[in-house]
């Protein structure tokens, strides 16, 4: 069973890596977010709802793809080092107890880019580490 499990994840990751359009998942933010890079710790704190403000005190608006979207699975596992189900557990615990708002879920990568472009303080991710008009890409340190 465990082997089947890891096989599944590898398949997902492999699919992402082999797809001609994908390099590695890119972290995107609204252009008004300061800086050009983000630490892994900070990214994890943002996606586990522990960090809710950018260093200049601007509120962070977090966007995510559906739990079973391949780009979400890859982002969670590769960038955050967390399985999607653990992220969901954290969001449920924080949101249903009234301690934080769950990230805003978008249906696909097009919507992700559109929302991040239009929302001050927004952060999101795409499967392609590319440059898009009106969106800033952050380097992961």
């Amino acid at each position: 069973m465990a082997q089947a499990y890891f096989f599944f994840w590898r398949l997902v990751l492999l699919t992402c890596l082999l797809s001609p359009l994908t390099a590695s998942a890119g972290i995107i933010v609204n252009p008004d977010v300061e800086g050009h890079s983000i630490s892994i710790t900070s990214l994890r704190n943002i996606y586990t709802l522990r960090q809710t403000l950018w260093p200049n005190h601007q509120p962070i608006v977090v966007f995510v793809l559906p739990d079973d979207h391949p780009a979400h699975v890859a982002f969670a596992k590769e960038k955050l080092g967390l399985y999607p189900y653990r992220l969901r557990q954290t969001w449920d615990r924080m949101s249903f107890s009234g301690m934080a708002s769950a990230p805003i879920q978008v249906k696909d990568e097009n919507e992700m880019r559109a929302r991040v472009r239009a929302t001050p303080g927004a952060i999101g991710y795409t499967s392609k580490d590319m440059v898009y008009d009106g969106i800033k890409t952050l380097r992961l340190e």
Partner: protein
Amino acid sequence: MTASRRLGWNSLLLGSLLAVSPVRADELAGPRYQIQGFAAQGLIGSTNNRFFGDSRNGVSTEFTEAGLHGTWQALDAVRLSGQILYRRAGESDRDGLRVDYAQADWQFYQTDVSQLGLKFGKVKLPYGLYNETRDVPFTRSGILLPQSVYVDNSRDLLLAAPGAFLHGASVQEYGAFDFLLGWVRPNFDSPSVDYSFLGNTRPGKLEGKGALGARLRWDLPTDTTLMLTYANARAEYAPGSSDTLAAGKVQFRNILFTAQQRLDTVTLTAEYGEPRFDTAGFGPFLPNSHRVIQAGYLQGEWRFLPAWELMLRHDVFYRDKHDKDGRLFAAATGLPAHSMFARDTTLGLRWDTTPNLMLRAEFHHVDGTGWLPGPDNPVFLSREQRWNMWLLQAAYRF
């Protein structure tokens, strides 16, 4: 400032204090409100004893949970949130629709690594890992939570209560810290609380006098969570007409320890506490008592496939640490000794069929009736020591 005007009497206070807050009021973007909800239906079958309805002679369908949760970011530093809950659990919970909680959270200090806030209203009580979201099926480790620690018998006491909590969180190199410290007026007035504290439903009324609650949580970089919860609650009894009990007092104190380790797809959890429970002044029919309860469980969860999880748990509950097998209790009262303990071994399976639908199956083998719901099993002498129970649950979320 239209939002703060709607807050009525709070607006002046909030407005003046927000002025000193480091959060800038014009920078919040994105939706200011969020609505989510769930609905779940369970099926229960059991041998020898009943659980949430007549599960012994047939299949009980009397375990239903549904909730609607809303959050509104009224101001950058003020979040209003609440939940409406429908719950039916056999004879133990027939209250139907209710306001689960309704709170305002004012985050008066925020930086990128720390927060300090005050939440008030009818607030969720921090108690161990699961209590604040105990009615949201997706957040539990099983269809039922470990009954030793999260006794459904006295759930009304633990749920939510009018009061206020100061809370804070900080992210450091050596992990993330959270704390909650507050005062509430808990709800002791329910038949199942009467059962667990006074041995039966009583004509009078137990009134919560005030409770102190605190929780410290430390999430280490090693994927470990350590937690300490402290609770100290008092209640006074107002006798009813032709009541055999006098105006007594009860007190409940507990320190609950929590440890969780997450290893790749495996989650190991343990929680343990020794709640102290005192009754005094109830007269000859309920002698003064001082009891130390022992409650704890060990639990393993394994996500063996992305959507499938297996859970194994051993849960123990002793109503009196100094009379674990209930022999002294049986000798003194003539009532069955097995009501003084319960050892529950649980095997559970979870399947997240789609991101919105979860199906669960669970089997319990229980030795003892220590947390058996009284209202579902009113005849004390017909309760049996050893019993099995299976549960199925379908839960939908939106």
